């Protein structure tokens, strides 16, 4: 005998079965990249529940070229051109820490003027990289003026670097023992003019982009990563500094002449996407300040390079040296067995470390926030893949 209650229960049970939500059916899988115009050479697999991301898995490696293996088969000088390929816009910085490591292994010290020239090139490259990054960030958020302006102003800095090194990008300028060549005649004045102009433009960037209510709405309070999480995830560079940790290798472990330069570590405490987008901008301002001091303090005379022969032998041993690149700490761990080639070379890049934060930030946020969160991580896919 079935009572009314039993019948109702039976109907409910069936109804639930028919309309029961299966998680796998409700979630939609999306694969973004690696040929998506916004993603760069990088694919991310995400699952969305309606508008919200519930799962994210970065699938990196689309442009993996085995830089570390290649390095084991070339001598210390031959390694320079291919090791700067991962970040062609910031090529001085990626070779900077390599040069420092090899200098330590060989046991040479670059001349003082060489150290200054190298630091100037590194700071100019930081500007080139960050303006490029900013241009892409602008177009990501549909702000095409912000794509045009930094792309145009970047040319000025590239012109400076071209005068200095002979190449627009991939300069192969920093070498173990200093820099490849001296700066050209009249470079100081030209550089100051360009930097002064660029600083004025930076002010305009802030007005048109960072104070734009649309940008603020899309980034403020989005993708929060508090200090504890940032430390746990081991992120670096602007991502770390946007979470309130004032950590900059140029300050905490000064290399070459950075201990003579007076500058502030730029950081913010708001921990959101806006902070991560704004800290690189503050870094650019600080870079202009640093370049001016470097030009001022640079000795007028002297050599810029302590020459080493191509097949120089390193002392057996190992070293870990790092610099602050445009994307955070960039370290080389090099083991030498006393031959002319590295026995093992490991590049630890900021991009590879920062991408770990992407699933953490994306899960729980809206799909529409993904571009803003992703590119604010200051991620360079090729550098992560190596």
């Amino acid at each position, binding site marked *: 005998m079935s009572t009314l209650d039993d019948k109702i229960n039976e109907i409910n049970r069936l109804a639930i079965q028919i309309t029961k939500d299966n998680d796998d059916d409700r979630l939609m899988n999306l694969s973004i990249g690696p040929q998506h115009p916004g993603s760069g050479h990088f694919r991310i697999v995400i699952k969305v529940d309606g508008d919200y991301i519930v799962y994210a898995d970065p699938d990196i490696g689309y442009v*993996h070229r085995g830089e570390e293996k290649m390095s084991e088969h070339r001598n210390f000088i031959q390694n320079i051109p291919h090791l700067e390929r991962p970040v062609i816009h910031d090529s001085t910085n990626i070779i900077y820490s390599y040069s420092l490591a090899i200098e330590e292994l060989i046991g040479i010290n670059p001349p003082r003027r060489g150290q200054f020239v190298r630091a100037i090139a590194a700071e100019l490259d930081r500007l080139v990289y960050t303006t490029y990054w900013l241009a892409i960030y602008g177009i990501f958020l549909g702000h095409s003026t912000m794509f045009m302006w930094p792309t145009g102003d970047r040319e000025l800095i590239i012109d400076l670097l071209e005068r200095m090194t002979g190449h627009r990008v991939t300069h192969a300028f920093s070498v173990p023992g200093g820099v490849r060549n001296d700066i050209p005649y009249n470079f100081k004045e030209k550089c100051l003019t360009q930097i002064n102009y660029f600083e004025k433009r930076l002010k305009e960037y802030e007005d048109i982009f960072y104070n734009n209510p649309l940008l603020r709405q899309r980034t403020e309070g989005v993708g929060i990563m508090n200090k504890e999480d940032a430390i746990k995830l081991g992120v670096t560079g602007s991502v770390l500094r946007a979470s309130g940790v004032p950590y900059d290798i140029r300050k905490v*472990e000064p290399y070459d002449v950075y201990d003579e330069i007076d500058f502030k570590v730029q950081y913010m405490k708001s921990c959101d996407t806006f902070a991560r987008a704004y800290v690189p901008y503050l870094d650019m301002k600080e870079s202009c300040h640093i370049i001016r001091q470097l030009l001022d303090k640079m000795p007028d005379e002297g050599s810029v390079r302590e020459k080493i022969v191509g097949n120089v032998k390193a002392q057996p*041993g190992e070293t870990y040296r790092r610099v602050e690149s445009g994307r955070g700490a960039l370290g080389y761990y090099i*083991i030498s067995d006393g031959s002319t080639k590295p026995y093992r070379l490991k590049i*630890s890049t900021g991009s590879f470390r920062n991408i770990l934060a992407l699933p953490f930030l994306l899960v729980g946020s809206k799909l529409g926030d993904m571009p803003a969160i992703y590119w604010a991580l200051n991620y360079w896919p090729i550098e992560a893949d190596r």
Partner: protein
Amino acid sequence: MENKDNSFGQLIDTSKDLDNKITSNIIKSAIQNFNQKIQLVYEKPNRSKIFVNNESLVEVALFLRNTYGLDHVESMSGTDFPAENEIEINYHLGSYINQDLHPYILNLATRVDRENAKSNSLINIFPSVEYFERETYEMLGVYFVGHPRNEPFLLPEDWADLPPLRKDFKLKGR
């Protein structure tokens, strides 16, 4: 106990003189706490390297994190030593919390057998090691016990060759 020092010996010191007090305290107390299990390989300004047996890797890492605030991994890599039939795994630990240790990096090294390469994962102690360990699994064929994803990462999906950073993987034409 057999000596598993870095076979390439010691490095000359070209860096600037810095106060080494805290860093040598770390080494001292670590060696005191785990007397037989830790060996000091070298100590330089801002850099030192200790060698740990693979069995005690996790407890030493936990001790270093909790006592000194070495809270993240700057870099992690593996190196193949076919002559000794071993693979060395290096964790470069740094600190964000402890301001005195900002410039300091501790190289925590351990070695595993080359044929049956298996090591304990440090993912529960340093979440920042996740992708580094995945990369090491793929590039050197070291299986990390406790890591949720020992699976391909950077290499092509159809990779069916030796792990490329092993020394017996030869490059064509070189």
